[in-house]
């Protein structure tokens, strides 16, 4: 019984940590309409930055400044934001596809750096001993799990209310205005680029928070599959809704973990790698079906630029390039 409760707390913690990233993506996609295909890259930038700032000094690797966790989180936001700003200058004046392609490239390059720049990132073995809150409780797993869950819930609540507040603040209204009609917003003197870059910084923060709860990061944590999972979480929950982002994260993580447990129970060990790929197929098909059938997700508000099905010709309209 205790095991199940302990697992429940662990499961919920993992899912809620995902919901940080989903909230960041929601700020980006749901509010500003930026399509980020490389969010795993930005999450990784945040995670590595924070890890370098807060871990104790290590021989043979750059960094290890032993700073407080909060400084690490701040650094994560700044570095992710700067990376986004550079990309933003190049792509935000172009069609949204260019941003998608470039962010995809960022994820590839971050993955390369994480793997190859051993002096900076620890290479394929990653960085361990990242300070975790409540590490003194690790002796009693149940208590440790609940303490972690408590912290995640607390930080998540803060983030949630902050984002909800932001969405209704002048700042959030600018972001929404940019999504609905960029030209009008810019004509009112709002700098589209500056606001859009800010949304990337939240992604870095999400990565840092995740790193500090797992206590260990490696390049394998930031493969394209992460980008994909988080997108599915957001689309299932409904883009534009913060509540939806959190619920979507829990639902999709439950499906993911559940189907993972199912495949390991049903298939022999040598077949499990194959079965795991079937899991991804299922989630990919699910994403496509949701996009086709219910693009608003479960809880989405999705007031997109123009009403659906205005024309039905097979090739798209030139209006989308305006």
């Amino acid at each position, binding site marked *: 019984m205790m095991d199940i409760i302990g697992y429940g707390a662990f499961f919920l913690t993992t899912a809620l940590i995902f919901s940080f990233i989903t909230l960041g993506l929601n700020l980006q996609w749901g509010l500003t*309409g930026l*399509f980020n*295909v490389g969010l795993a890259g930005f999450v990784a930038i945040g995670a590595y930055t924070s890890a370098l700032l807060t871990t104790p000094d290590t021989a043979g690797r750059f960094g290890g400044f032993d700073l407080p966790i909060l400084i690490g989180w701040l650094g994560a936001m700044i570095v992710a934001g700067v990376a986004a700003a550079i*990309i933003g*200058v*190049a*792509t935000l004046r*172009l*069609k*949204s*596809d*260019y941003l*998608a*392609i*470039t962010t*995809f*490239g*960022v994820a*590839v*390059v971050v993955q*390369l750096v994480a*793997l*190859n720049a051993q002096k900076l990132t620890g290479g394929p073995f990653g960085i361990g001993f990242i300070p975790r809150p409540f590490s003194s409780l690790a002796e009693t797993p149940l208590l440790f799990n609940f303490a972690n869950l408590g912290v995640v819930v607390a930080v998540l609540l803060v983030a949630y209310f902050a984002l909800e507040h932001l969405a209704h603040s002048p700042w959030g209204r600018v972001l929404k205005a940019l999504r609905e009609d960029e030209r009008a917003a810019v004509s009112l003197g709002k700098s589209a680029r500056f606001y859009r870059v800010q949304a990337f910084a939240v992604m870095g923060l999400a990565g840092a928070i995740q790193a500090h709860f797992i206590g260990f990061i490696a390049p394998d944590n930031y493969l*394209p599959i992460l980008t*994909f999972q988080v*997108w599915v979480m957001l*689309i299932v929950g409904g883009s534009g809704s913060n509540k939806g982002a959190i619920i979507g994260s829990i639902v999709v993580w439950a499906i993911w973990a559940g189907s993972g447990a199912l495949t390991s129970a049903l298939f022999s060990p040598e077949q499990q*790698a*194959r*079965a795991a*790929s*079937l*899991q*991804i*197929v299922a*989630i*990919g*098909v699910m*994403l*496509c079906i949701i*996009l*086709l059938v219910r*693009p608003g997700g479960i809880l989405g508000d999705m007031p*997109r*630029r*123009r009403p*659906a*099905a*205005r*024309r*039905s*010709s*097979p*090739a*798209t*309209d*030139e*209006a*989308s*390039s305006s």
Partner: protein
Amino acid sequence: MNLQFIVDGLLTGSMIGLGAIGVTLTYSILRFSNFAHGDFMAWGTYATLAVVSAIGAIFGKVAPIGPLSFGWPLIVAVIVAMGFTGVLALALDKVLFARLRAKGQSIIVVMASFGASMALRSLLEFLFTSRPTYFSRAIQIAMPVGFGIRITPDQIALLIVTALLVFGVHMLMTRTQTGRSMQALSQNPALARVVGIDVTKVVRITWLIGGGLACVAGVMIGILVQIRPLMGFDMLLPMFAAAILGGIGSVPGAVLGGLIIGLAEAGAVQLIGAEWRAAISFIILMAVLFVRPIGLFGVRER
């Protein structure tokens, strides 16, 4: 510096260029960047492999042609698989992309292509496992051709095939009615429709060409390197970079972009080391976006 990088670069560039033609056509005619294009490559390659094994099962072992590592079964298989990949692309369009396109939000189509790419690739992993395989395990002796350059018969054959295909597509685009319709639709969709161009047909041909060329590019990778489910996804960034460098919508541009990126990659492998290879296309992509976002042969969007 060893001049061998020219041959390696031209070969990599051919693979990227053939793939980039599909990317650039999809982008300019259907107006979305197709993240599933790399996976068409992988599917085409595995389809070729399946047909080769089927032929092998029926006719027994076939001797390779002259000094090449493959015989007629591979050539037959590639032609069958090109058709298969084109139909696969068409089917995906019918089930998914066309319906989303009709709703008029191009970015949702991009997202769907991202989801489809994950599903296609993982399905390959399920069917064939992620273990690399090969068309032939025979080792070819590279012939020296002077200036310290060595080249294998397979490499010469594949360079010739690429040149023929690119020439063929270029002729199709510029000399036939179909090709002119495709160009018209990419330059001004509204006007193209007004003059009565059959949009459905153009869309169909775009997918068939894109899928077929992706299949050939994949098989080239399969012959020269190895066959893996991830092989196409790894080519995605170089292909996008080549299409943008050449200018969206331009077939010669996509090929030239591919060759430039291929040569740059091969040069970088010699100078900085193979592990940074994948970063080259990103650097080129960023440079193009900063300096000349419409690319070498691009036209400004209307």
